[in-house]
């Protein structure tokens, strides 16, 4: 297989909280331009995997991004190197305005003109946010907050975006919208790593998927393939 366009490689990743291994010897990779999804039930270790890649939780094993080991690189620098984050529970700053939330994602950026262009891009994608730009993040509806979380991630103009359960707490209609947006973002050249409990939606847009169960990868394959897989159907799709 072609190894040149691997953007993230995870080798023998283990994340432990005390004696409990949340992630147990997991290896996988994400290639340039793909949508890769990690699916699994609550407590399968999906979020812990993502947190390890983001640099906010200690781990053993090796995580490389663009060929470089991420160990000992602080989270804010990982983001600045082009890995945008849509954190678990959205991570909206509730007492800051929508605009201030967006501005925060450009914290390390010095290229003012492209930043201005990126605001327009985000507002074109989510016109709702433009209307609410002076409103406090905490007063937005769940769907709008999710738009803000994704819009904010876009503001860091990254080649890669990590999303932790973007469907959480959203009505089915909004879930479909958000997943549509994710494929749109992917189409403009951003590689996506998506963690989801909503296996059906995630598998239908994913190029490849890994199924996690109690900290281990039990299945992997193309998204459409897993959608038809008997075991996946029984466990996650009902």
């Amino acid at each position: 297989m072609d190894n040149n366009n691997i953007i993230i490689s995870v080798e023998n990743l283990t994340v432990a909280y005390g004696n409990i291994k949340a992630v147990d010897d997991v290896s996988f990779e994400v290639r340039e331009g793909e949508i890769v999804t990690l699916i699994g039930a609550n407590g399968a270790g999906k979020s812990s995997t993502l947190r390890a890649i983001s640099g906010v939780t200690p781990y053993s094993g090796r995580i490389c991004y663009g060929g470089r080991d991420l160990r000992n690189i602080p989270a804010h620098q990982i983001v600045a190197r082009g890995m945008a984050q849509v954190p678990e529970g959205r991570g909206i700053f509730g007492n800051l305005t929508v605009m201030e939330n967006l501005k925060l994602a450009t914290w390390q950026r010095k290229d003012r003109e492209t930043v201005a262009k990126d605001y327009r891009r985000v507002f074109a994608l989510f016109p709702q946010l433009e209307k609410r730009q002076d409103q406090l993040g905490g007063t937005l509806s769940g769907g709008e907050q999710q738009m803000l979380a994704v819009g904010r991630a876009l503001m860091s103009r990254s080649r890669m975006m990590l999303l932790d359960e973007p469907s959480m707490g959203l009505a089915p209609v909004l879930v479909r919208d958000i997943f549509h947006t994710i494929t749109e973002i992917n189409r403009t050249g951003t590689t996506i790593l998506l963690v989801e409990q909503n296996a059906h939606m995630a598998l239908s847009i994913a190029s490849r998927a890994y199924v996690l169960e109690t900290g281990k990868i039990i299945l992997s394959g193309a998204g459409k393939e897993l959608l038809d897989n008997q075991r996946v159907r029984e466990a996650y799709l009902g």
Partner: protein
Amino acid sequence: MHTRWLMPGILLCVFVLSLIIHRFELLDSYLQLIVMYIGINIILTLSLNLINGYMGEFSVGHAGFMAVGAYIASFLTVKVIPAHLAAWLFPVAVIAGGMGAALVGLVVALPSFKTRGDYLAIVTLAFVMIVKSVIENIDALGGPRGFLGMEKLATLPWVFFWVILSLWIIRNLVYSNFGRGVLSIREDEVAGDLMSVNTRQVKVLAFTVSSFFAGIAGALFAHLLQFINPRSFDIIKSTDILIMVYLGGIGSIAGSILGATVYTVLLEILRPLGIWRMVLIPLILVLLMLFRPKGIMGLREFPWFVPLRDRLAGRLPRNKRGSS
């Protein structure tokens, strides 16, 4: 266009007024003293609000930083600077006091913010005790007897000048890119990290800036009272500043001004009550916390303290928007 010059114009007028009052002694000296106390307390409250209000950490170390600033500045004006130059070089002494406090603040901040968590309260509590006992054991600073000999260099115009400078710097700071980083720490530190904010650097820097202003306030305090001793900077002093922050309101410049003013005036008005004052004031505080837990102005701002460019863009003060 005229709004741009309105505020500087008013400030200049008030500054000239304070010069005239000072020069011709138009105001009762007791009242002048109270006004200057209010000014110094505004600086202290603003600087602690940066940490406890805007950043959401909990520091009780301001008495210590105040002490560092007070002693450095006093030592300079009494022992180093020749007497005939003292009045002219007073700003240098004040800045030196601020710088010294900032440096000490940096030393406290570096280990305290190495890990996440609530260590800052404990570290700063210990810090206040350490500063007090260090000063008590330095004979050159008068030890427990205290230090005196300062001229009354902190005059109404000077205090006014430093208050405005502190207000201006801190306002610009909290509405800057750096300021948004500070707010992100209060709101959700991990999310801040994930938005590329170097939260550790922001915390250390904010703490250093805050210590600087506490040092400035200490230097002014020393040259107003003309006598300092280690007991003036114990944990009770820190508690006073904490009260002013939470009375006025966290995360608000208007709140800092209000908190410092109301508390200082209240202490003076209730002076005839003697020891009962210390029963009444805590009672008022308990009631305040019950009915307005975020303080008088908690998380809200008066439009004047929002930078013009934000106001011109049609932005209201940060927390007056929305429906929460």
